[in-house]
């Protein structure tokens, strides 16, 4: 880990996104080590409010799961556009991880 790393994607081994059915989007942050997991799973890093601001969705609709055994943080929320409907930009929601990977860690 480089000391300059300040974003989720710099620390995580993989950040990915995908549909979870036509109406949900789910994002997985694979941390790879306990140290990174402890950093990214800490209070105030990946929160419903911060994710909601990134994706411009209702914070009350965002679910955050912390899976210590797998060193994974999972985030799910309803798709802003149901899959395939007019306005769809990403049919499989496979490129929606980029804003989350760019999320800065709080100072």
């Amino acid at each position, binding site marked *: 880990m480089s000391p300059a790393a300040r974003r989720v994607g710099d620390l995580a081994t993989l950040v990915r996104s995908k549909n979870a*059915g036509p109406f949900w989007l789910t994002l997985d942050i694979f941390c790879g080590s306990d140290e990174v997991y402890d950093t990214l799973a800490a209070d105030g890093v990946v929160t419903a409010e911060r994710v909601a601001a990134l994706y411009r969705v209702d914070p009350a609709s965002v679910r955050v799961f912390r899976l210590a055994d*797998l060193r*994974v943080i999972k985030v*799910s929320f309803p798709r802003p556009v149901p899959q395939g*409907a*007019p306005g769809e*930009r*990403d049919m499989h929601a496979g490129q929606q991880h980029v804003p989350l990977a760019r999320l800065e860690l709080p100072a």
Partner: protein
Amino acid sequence: MTSTHKVKPGVAGLVVPVGMLGLGFPEESVARGIALGADAIAVDAGSTDSGPSYLATGTAKTTEEAVTRDLRILIVAGKAAGIPVIVGSCGTSGTDDGVDWVAAQVERIAREERLRLRVARIYSEQNPDRLRAKLREGRIVPLEPAGPLDEATLLRCQRIVGLMGHEPIAEAVANGAEVVLAGRATDAAVLSAVPLLLGCPPGPAWHAAKTAECGGLCTTDPLAAGVHVEIDATGFTIESLDPATSCTPTSVAAHMLYENADPFRAREPAGTLDTSAATYAALDGRRVRVEGARFEAAEPHTMKLEGAAVAGYRTIALAGIRDPEVLASIGTWAATLERFLVDGVERVLGLGPGSYRLELRCYGWNAVLGELDPDPGRPREVGALLVVSAPEQATANKIAKYANPYLLHLPLPGVDHLPSYAFMSSPAEIPCGAVHEFVLQHAVELEAPDELVRTELAEL
């Protein structure tokens, strides 16, 4: 299961050759799986993941040749081993046409391979009038994030399918089906049917099914081959069908994350799989032992509905931009063009902004993420895709035709000459036909697991 195959009570072996029929797999991997001990070959053939058009039109996303190739290997192997071949969500969306499409391929394979086969077709496409009656009885419930269903939405759907559970599949196998072609079914139901029929407990059976549903995706090399699972009284053991590929505790456990909003709980027609207490242990470098999942039976059983409706008609046009000066201000250019077109469409065509939808997506800049893009930067080249949708194709075409000269020539504000961008084609406007959308996120409560499915058994 025929008399040539010996069954161990309470233990079931499954070969899951691939995550989707038609994707292809090494032929020898199936024989390897059968040699490990198998009571069924089970494979999923569909998903909503490719989008609503396949359901709305009842067409498959896979090509017939690729599906026939996979089916032939599985059917010949299954017949020789005396174990059933189960295919779920036939034809991508599991419509009745999808089941018949796969069934026609099975008939041809049986003829060409000179096989006698008992084939079950299980249909799960739904009649909207019957569902309307269910709705009026209060038997259709919304699933998050949907609100209550209204009749108009139900009647808008081009097609509706219900996701069947394991029961009709298990019943077809119990009735001697050697090939089961199921309409829309949950992936896990396709895999759990035979283990549950053979008396495996539901926790291990459903968790094994949920883990193996995408074939090799729970291994260290998802493209190498599918998996073999053996389910018993306390759990299941999983391994890759490729000798050089491994299942690890992490690769197996991580599959509960994939395409699931909730990594611990998965709703099935017969209840909910809860994996929060599951343990994953390496037996050796390739095999993983999983125990501890529970299955909470639900009453009444439910069937999730999927419905796709026409949301409009689309026309597109693509202009390539390479001029560095335009690219340096691509956001300004795109916003100027959009504004210009919206004004012109109202002034010239008499269509207000609420009566159609126009988007300019700058591929190479921020087309994928739009305003969410954290860092669109300065592009080297942009494909500016004009996307028009309207209630009729003719209207979408008309708007795209109106837009054509401006998409071709619009300069940046303050520029005194008329540039021309690189159109991809002539005609520039490309009618795309209907745009479909998924409109149901609801479940219907059932009187019995087979209430809304229809099974036909035939000897070939």
